[in-house]
């Protein structure tokens, strides 16, 4: 283990180097360009054995990844925002074919208006494609998560997206610890695909037409496989903790034991919110934080267990559903708690769209609000757009 200074992009590229995938097919897009640019340097310098495929679009990038994965390779790529949107149809094809491809992604808002900064609308828009999603809070976690995600993906044949917040993490240099190459290789092990198109002794048909008589059965089986991801993830995360000393649960709780109210948030904002929690705790206020790290599959039972102990919860959504009913995390969280006898009052804060800075005082204001909700026992305002001009 050694201490290094790396940006989120450098950290992800470094993890990819240590993973040494068989194939990386990618197309550059701000702010994820550096991931593959740095990785292509590793390829050029002979530090990896990877076949690097430069393509002409993200659609082609993931298509090439699908081909390489069907051929039995360990496959990774990287993208962001519009790039993920262009990959959208192939996301479903990779997942349906059970191809454990891993994407190092940078969360960036989707056009229009055109913007290069952070929000979560890109991955939230792909959350039904059958990929595991992990949202990272810092560069250390981005590095660690790629390795854990690859292990989980290959164990379950479910592809994975690991994401960082655009610029806030992707371009921010932080101090982190990296493992030795050999430790990473031992942890991920040799990839043994369930099938391979290059297995000439056992020819198979890949991706045949599947109509009314079988499509539903195939989807049902895929959903069932997806349900096994949580356990596989937890095992991989625990094994990784033994190796690195860093444990990343699917859902993280911070100072929630005796808390009356909590924020439920993801990404770098959740890390920042811990600072606010400490500050408010110093003032004697019983506040906590629940960090959503994995949003596909949903750690439903963990979320229920975590959130039902509070009087009030504020969900912080870095994207909107355009349903006139708040963000996706809010909607799904409310749905999960519907059957719980004891449940908190839940409000939603849509924030940070297009990279709008979220200040410590903004987060403290959310805690002020939910303490008020808890005290009054009712919600005055269900959905708040936080930090946008024209709103109170």
């Amino acid at each position, binding site marked *: 283990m050694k201490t290094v200074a790396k940006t989120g992009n450098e950290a992800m590229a470094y993890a990819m180097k240590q993973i040494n995938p068989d194939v990386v097919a990618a197309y550059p897009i701000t702010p994820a360009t550096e991931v593959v640019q740095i990785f292509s340097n590793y390829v050029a310098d002979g530090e990896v054995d990877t076949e690097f495929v430069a393509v002409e679009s993200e659609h082609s990038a993931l298509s090439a990844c699908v081909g390489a994965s069907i051929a039995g390779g360990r496959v990774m790529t990287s993208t962001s925002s519009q790039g993920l949107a262009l990959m959208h149809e192939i996301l479903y094809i990779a997942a349906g074919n059970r191809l454990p491809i891993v994407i190092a992604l940078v969360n960036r808002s989707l056009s229009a208006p055109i913007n290069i900064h952070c929000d979560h609308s890109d991955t939230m828009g792909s959350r039904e494609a059958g990929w595991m999603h992990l949202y990272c809070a810092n560069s250390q976690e981005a590095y660690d998560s790629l390795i854990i995600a690859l292990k989980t993906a290959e164990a379950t044949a479910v592809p994975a997206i690991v994401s960082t917040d655009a610029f806030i993490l992707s371009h921010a240099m932080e101090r982190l610890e990296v493992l030795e190459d050999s430790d990473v290789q031992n942890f991920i092990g040799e990839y043994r695909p369930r*099938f391979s198109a290059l297995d000439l002794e056992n020819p198979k048909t890949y991706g045949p037409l599947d109509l009314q008589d079988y499509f539903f059965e195939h989807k049902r089986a895929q959903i069932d496989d997806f349900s096994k991801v949580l356990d596989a993830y937890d095992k991989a995360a625990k094994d990784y903790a033994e190796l690195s000393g860093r444990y990343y649960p699917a859902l993280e709780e911070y100072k929630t034991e005796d808390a009356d109210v909590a924020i439920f948030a993801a990404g770098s904002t959740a890390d920042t919110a811990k600072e606010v929690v400490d500050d408010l705790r110093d003032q004697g206020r019983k506040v906590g934080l629940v960090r959503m790290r994995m949003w596909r599959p949903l750690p439903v039972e963990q979320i229920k267990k975590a959130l039902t102990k509070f009087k009030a919860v504020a969900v912080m959504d870095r994207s909107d559903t355009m349903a006139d009913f708040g963000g996706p995390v809010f909607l799904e969280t409310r749905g999960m708690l519907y059957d719980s006898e004891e449940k908190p009052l839940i409000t939603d804060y849509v924030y940070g769209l297009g990279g709008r800075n979220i200040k410590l005082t903004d987060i403290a204001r959310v805690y002020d609000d939910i303490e008020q909700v808890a005290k009054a026992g009712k919600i005055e305002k269900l959905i708040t757009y936080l930090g946008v001009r024209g709103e109170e």
Partner: protein
Amino acid sequence: MSMKFDKLMTWKELPAGCLIDEPSTSLRFKTGDWRSMRPVWDSEKCIHCLFCWISCPDSAIKVENEKITGIDYNYCKGCGICASICPPKASAIEMIREEK
């Protein structure tokens, strides 16, 4: 896991991924009963040019030692390509109605 064709499988019986995990399963699907017209091959007239063999979309022209030996009615769908491609001077394949 091997594929079953005699009955529809449940989702629990399917191999993982939407793949067919053994080759040549099309052999088990006999499409001969899709025919409304049947090609009849005349061995006397045939010049063994193999035009029908190369054109048949269902690989239903039977060949041994580079000579046509007949038509595989298990798979022939009666499209008539063989009859239309057969050189007019030979006219070795005639389409007749399946209706009895």
